[in-house]
C-alpha cells in the first residue's frame, strides 16, 4: 500500500463530492456532497500523517471533523429557516443575490 492509493481514493471521493455540489438541485444533497468532500480531505490528511510519521495531519482531522459538525448544524439550521420562508429546497430558485 502506498500513499498514492489513499490520495487517489481521496481525490475520487473529492471529485464525486464536487460533482454533487455542482449537479444536484436539492440543497440537502448539496450539503451531503460537501460532507463527502470533507471526508475525502480527511482521508488524505490521515494518509499524509501516517506516511510522514507525523501527528499534525491527525490532529487536523480532529479539528476538521469538529468544524464539519458545526458547519452541518448551522447549514441545516439555515436550510430549515430558508425552507420555512421559501417553501423550496431547489438551489436554482434561491437566486435573490442576483444583479
Amino acid at each position, binding site marked *: 500500500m502506498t500513499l498514492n492509493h489513499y490520495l487517489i481514493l481521496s481525490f475520487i471521493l473529492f471529485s464525486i463530492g464536487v460533482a454533487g455540489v*455542482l449537479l444536484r438541485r436539492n440543497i440537502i444533497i448539496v450539503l451531503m456532497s460537501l460532507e463527502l468532500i470533507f471526508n475525502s480531505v480527511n482521508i488524505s490528511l490521515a494518509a499524509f500523517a501516517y506516511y510522514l510519521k507525523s501527528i499534525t495531519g*491527525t490532529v487536523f482531522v480532529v479539528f476538521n471533523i469538529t468544524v464539519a459538525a458545526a458547519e452541518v448544524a448551522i447549514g441545516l439550521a439555515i436550510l430549515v429557516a430558508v425552507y420555512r420562508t421559501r417553501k423550496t429546497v431547489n438551489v436554482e430558485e434561491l437566486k435573490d443575490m442576483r444583479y
Partner: protein
Amino acid sequence: MEQIFFYIFAVIAVVTAIAVVSVRNPVHSALYLIVCFLQVAAIFILLRSPFLAAVQVFIYVGAVMVLFLFAVMVLDVGKESFSEHMHSQAIPAVITVAGLLAVAVWLISTGSLTAPLGPYTEEALSKNTEVIGKALYTQYIFPFEVVSLLLLIALIGAVVLVLKDKGRGAGRRP
C-alpha cells in the same frame, strides 16, 4: 491482506458516494452516505488511526447523519422528478470535474513525497490516541480552545436560526 481490505473499502466508498449524488430520493442518499462514512472510518483504521475511526463513527455516522435524516424528514421532501434532479449546467460540470480528476490523478501518480519525515515511529502512531491527546492539549491548545468556542457558537447559532421568532421586536431590548 491489507491491500484486499483497502480495495474492498475503497470500492464500496466510491460506489456509495456515486449513489449519494445520483439517487433521487434524499432519504436514500442519506443512507448511502452513512455507508460511505463507515468505509472512511475503516480506511482510518488501515491508516493506523483507531481514534479517528472512532470519532468518524461517533460524529459523522452518529450525529451528522442523524441531523441530515432529521432535516430530510422535517422538510418533507419526497422523491424528485427528473427535471428537478439535475442542475442545468450538468454537462460542462461533469466534463470539468472529470478533467480535474484526470489532472489530479496524473499529478499524484507522477509526484513523489519530498516533505521531511516526522518524529514518530510506527509504533507510537499505532497507539496514537495518547499521542493525539498530548498534542491537542499542549501544542494545539489554542486552536483547540478556538474550535470548542466555535462549536458553542454553532450550537447557539443553530438554535437561534431554527427557533421560530415569536414576538419579534417586542422584546428586542431587555
